[in-house]
């Protein structure tokens, strides 16, 4: 093109060039709004079925334009991580940056292609909206800027956890999980959006967002402090908890949930044990109340109550039938999942505060409940579920048929057991996996070979054991046969030779209740020198004695307690597996409730003169 010459004065006819404009179309913008682009950032849309009310959009909004509003009638399920909150937008503040869309864990919030809103002064409130899928005016506009892989800012992937390979772990009981190093913990902790769903879902409402944040800040001591606000069994829960928190995690709706359990493990391991004891002692009462509490059972429920009560200034004595404390955590969960030395640390923190534990003391045998009632101001029963159930099929009363809980207890107590060359396990829960994998290791050590068959009534989709347990058990050589029902223990020359099973056609009836339906034509024989039953557990309440059993109220076989764990007898509380079913963290929560109730009771026991 020609250069621009300012001295060019043009020619006489130069203005005639303008006549060409008559032939051109004028640039005219239409009066009505035209369709916006496909990625346009217009007014908000929110799919209320996908939205979980986590408030992450509110947190990232740079103009504080989002307020979370409670909408009654919407689903609310802390266990699944769903709240009945929905974001409301103030368009006087919103700048349509779409960071809320990019950071939404579920992808429910989006910006539409609608961009026109007008109102009179009297209608200024219309700038503050509670968006749903219908949009600001209820007219359907397509989505503009919505969740996309390009712009997604949610950290969906979890830091992998290193585990020992099957070949390395099959002949020993060393802990399988390696734990996070400091860098992994930092990265994993940074994924958290601090929504608090984990806190709501946890039975004991651990301050997980706070300890995750502390780990991210490089402050494991701060994390331990937050942990001890609700859980003195953190080494334990950091390894074996049923992690309701992770089930409820917002990020887990589309990605992998934050590894809240492994982060707890990391924090507890990262701080020196003596320092943990100091932190656990912070805030304890500096006086002695003069009240005495007896706790039957040194398991998580009993010892959590003991931890709370001793910190509140009471004198606590725990009576434990076994030689060591920990309850099912020590005597039920094998070392490769829950190393005993870490449990010992949890227990050491509790005893270091002054809780007295009398081991090898069985209530009902060495001393009675009546004596406890007389000598103590309050008594807590935390006796767990130590009686293994039996199928009672023919042959189940033989010596070669054992209950899983009995065997696990023996192994944990260091007793020598007769290791079978082949074994059949009945049951599909975590206890069945525990005994199967324990026996597998003992077999490997003794015979160099694993021969374990595990049968369960459930089909694989409904196995009660954790998916990780099933996977790891298979890797270790346990043969898992699903949907089989035990019929008879087979004997040969008076010795156990195996198990006969029938196939299970279905396990739930139309109403969804557990009612297995067998097929007698589908029969199998499973050979084994030992049959172990891991079908269920019951509480051994014989220690109560007949008089006390009659005096107490029961509900469908379990001790009846109120919301605070108190029985109908003024001086007696019950907590943990016995009343609530098997779960460590629920037992911890129970322990806290019972301790609060006892403390309130003991605090008003003074009588006016």
């Amino acid at each position, binding site marked *: 093109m020609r250069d621009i010459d300012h001295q060019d004065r043009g020619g006489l006819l130069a203005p005639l060039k303008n006549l060409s404009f008559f032939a051109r179309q004028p640039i005219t913008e239409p009066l009505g709004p035209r369709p916006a682009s496909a990625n346009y950032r217009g007014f908000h849309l929110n799919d209320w079925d996908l939205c979980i009310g986590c408030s992450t959009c509110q947190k990232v909004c740079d103009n504080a334009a989002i307020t979370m509003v409670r909408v009654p009638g919407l689903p609310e399920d802390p266990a699944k991580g769903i709240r009945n909150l929905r974001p409301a937008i103030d368009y006087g503040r919103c700048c349509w940056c779409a960071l809320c869309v990019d950071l939404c864990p579920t992808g429910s919030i989006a910006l539409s292609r609608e961009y026109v809103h007008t109102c009179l002064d009297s209608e200024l409130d219309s700038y503050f909206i509670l968006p749903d899928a219908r949009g600001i005016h209820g007219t359907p506009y397509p989505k503009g800027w919505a969740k996309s892989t390009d712009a997604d800012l949610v950290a969906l992937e979890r830091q992998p956890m290193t585990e020992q390979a099957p070949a390395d772990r099959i002949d020993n009981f060393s802990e399988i999980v390696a734990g996070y190093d400091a860098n992994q913990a930092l990265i994993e902790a940074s994924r958290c959006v601090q929504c608090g769903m984990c806190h709501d879902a946890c039975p004991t409402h651990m301050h997980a967002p706070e300890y995750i944040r502390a780990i991210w800040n490089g402050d494991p001591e701060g994390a331990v402090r937050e942990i001890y606000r609700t859980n003195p069994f953190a080494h334990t829960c950091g390894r074996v908890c049923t992690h309701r928190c992770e089930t409820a995690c917002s990020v887990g709706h589309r990605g992998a949930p934050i590894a809240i359990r492994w982060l707890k493990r990391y924090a507890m391991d990262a701080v020196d044990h003596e320092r943990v004891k100091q932190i656990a002692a912070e805030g304890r009462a500096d006086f002695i109340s003069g009240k005495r509490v007896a706790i039957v059972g040194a398991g998580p429920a009993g010892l959590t109550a003991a931890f709370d009560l001793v910190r509140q200034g009471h004198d606590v004595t725990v009576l434990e039938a076994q030689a060591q404390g920990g309850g099912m955590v020590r005597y039920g969960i094998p070392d490769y999942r829950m190393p005993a030395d870490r449990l010992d640390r949890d227990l050491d923190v509790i005893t270091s505060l002054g809780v007295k534990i009398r081991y090898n003391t069985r209530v009902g045998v060495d001393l009675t409940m009546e004596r406890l009632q007389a000598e103590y101001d309050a008594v807590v029963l935390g006796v767990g579920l130590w009686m293994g159930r039996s*199928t009672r099929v023919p042959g189940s009363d033989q010596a070669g048929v054992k209950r899983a809980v009995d065997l696990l207890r023996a192994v944990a107590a260091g007793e020598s057991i007769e290791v079978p060359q082949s074994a059949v396990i009945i049951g599909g829960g975590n206890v069945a996996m525990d005994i199967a994998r324990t026996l597998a290791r003992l077999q490997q050590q003794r015979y160099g070979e694993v021969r374990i068959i595990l049968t369960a009534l459930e089909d694989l989709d409904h196995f009660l054991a954790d998916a990780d347990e099933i996977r790891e058990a298979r890797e270790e050589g346990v043969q898992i046969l699903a949907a089989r029902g035990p*019929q008879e223990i087979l004997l040969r020359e008076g010795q156990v030779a195996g198990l006969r099973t029938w196939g299970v056609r279905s396990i739930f009836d139309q109403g969804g209740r557990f009612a297995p339906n*067998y097929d007698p034509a589908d029969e199998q024989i499973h050979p084994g020198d030992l049959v172990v039953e891991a*079908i269920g557990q019951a509480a051994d309440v014989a220690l109560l004695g007949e008089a006390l*059993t009659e005096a*107490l109220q029961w509900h469908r076989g379990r001790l009846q307690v109120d919301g605070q764990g108190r029985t109908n007898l003024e001086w007696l509380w019950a907590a943990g597996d016995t009343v609530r079913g098997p779960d460590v963290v629920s037992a911890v929560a129970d322990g806290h409730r019972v301790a609060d109730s006892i403390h309130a009771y003991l605090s008003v026991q003074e009588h006016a003169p």
Partner: protein
Amino acid sequence: MIEGHQGSYDRIKSKTSLKEVLEVACSFEASARDFYRDLAPKVSKNIRWLAEDLAAEEQCHYDLLRGLADHPDIVEQIAVEVHTPANNTRFSDAIHLPDLGPRPDDQAVLQYAMGREHIAMEHYQSLAEGTEPGPIRDMFVYLANEETKHKAELEKLYYETVHSGGV
């Protein structure tokens, strides 16, 4: 006293009218109810609820059969039930109708109760097979179905109680 044994079987087999059949069935339920009622104080308090619940269940069955016996149009009532096939492939852990012993636990009581229902169901079924088609045969089929339903309920309770999942 165990209701399922041969004596009572013979007793009912000899009846020919629907009303008479129902009367005998009622007395079976009544004796079962009394059995559980007597059992209740003998078991530990923590499982007493089972015996009490079972007694109450038997009372309900008794009331149902009593109502049918007193109702003038039982023929039509029975005809409806006859078309429901009896599904009999569920078995609990080896029903052997154990002797309850001096201090039964919840598993023993439930197994015993299921055994009773099972035997009663078998008896009604074989009675039905040995009877000419007609209202009496329909009555036996109906009773067999009722016992099957009772047993199914107990099965569920048994599994929930005993097979508590293994944690």
